[in-house]
């Protein structure tokens, strides 16, 4: 079982805290999801930060601050340092965005920031692509978790590149892998877990569902089902049919 910088999660689900219709729905969705980790952010003080922090602490889950919105390594590193103090954790979901429309990670800025933060003792959770070369460089920088996207953030498209995600899993058997971003349906989460991933991270699919609490429960079941399936050594697919009912003893009619 791969851990997350020495921490074993109680469920293979990380859930974002943004975009819920109300704080009460956020809390109920977290309870229904059984999520082990809550992602949070930092923004300019405008009142309300303290109340939000009280809600998050009340969830009783691990907190994973992000550097969302940062477009350079410098911004992301400063944000990470501020997050470590504010949230009292050295876990950081490192986002360095390279493209405004796709919110695709900037691989060069991401690696630069990861090298700096790993050297400063941060436990870096890089939001990355399924690019194996970048993944190798991130691991060499000290990352022990990789979080490739399934699809662009908030798109709900699911796993855009299953082949890439599968080869990433095979290439890094000792690194915890999380599909982060792009999931829209519980079946996407199950599919990610069936590939042997260690967790999924999502936000919009739950928060923007018509019934976020019910959807949170659905994702919890799907992630668990996918994890159980991965552990059960799935059969290999084949192109042609193979009868499941024995042919021996078949009647001559």
């Amino acid at each position, binding site marked *: 079982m791969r851990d997350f910088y020495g921490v074993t999660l109680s469920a293979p689900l990380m859930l974002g805290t943004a975009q*819920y219709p109300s704080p009460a729905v956020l809390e109920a969705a977290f309870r229904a999801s059984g999520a082990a980790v809550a992602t949070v*952010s930092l923004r*300019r*003080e405008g009142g309300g930060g*303290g109340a939000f922090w009280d809600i*998050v602490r009340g969830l009783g889950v691990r907190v994973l601050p992000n550097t969302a919105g940062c477009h350079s390594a410098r911004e992301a590193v400063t944000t990470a340092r501020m997050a470590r*103090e*504010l949230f009292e954790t050295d876990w950081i979901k490192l986002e360095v965005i390279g493209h405004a429309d796709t919110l695709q990670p900037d691989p060069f800025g991401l690696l630069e920031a990861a090298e700096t933060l790993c050297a400063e003792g941060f436990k870096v959770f890089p939001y990355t692509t399924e690019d194996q070369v970048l993944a190798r460089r991130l691991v060499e920088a000290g990352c022990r978790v990789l979080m490739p996207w399934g699809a662009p*953030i908030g798109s709900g498209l699911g796993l855009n590149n299953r082949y890439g995600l599968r080869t990433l899993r095979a290439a890094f058997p000792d690194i915890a892998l999380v599909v982060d971003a792009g999931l829209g349906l519980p079946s996407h989460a199950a599919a990610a877990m069936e590939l042997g991933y260690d967790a999924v991270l999502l936000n919009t699919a739950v928060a923007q569902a018509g019934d976020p609490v019910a959807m949170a429960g659905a994702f919890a079941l799907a992630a668990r089902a996918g994890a159980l399936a991965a552990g059960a050594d799935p059969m290999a697919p084949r192109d042609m049919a193979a009868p499941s009912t024995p042919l021996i003893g078949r009647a001559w009619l």
Partner: protein
Amino acid sequence: MRIEVNGEAREVTAATVQAALVELGLGAARVATALNGVFVPAGARAGQPLAEGDRLEVLSPMQGG
């Protein structure tokens, strides 16, 4: 002196980051600070002088994905 706080021009009498937070009513708030793009840890705020035109960022916990 005139500084920028979270992108807005503010006139403050404070000479340090810590004094500016108190002056802005954020002395007891749960915040993290950066001055001119550089993180200022809570323990260093009282010793961090302010200069005319400085950009102070004061961040608090927020929802995120």
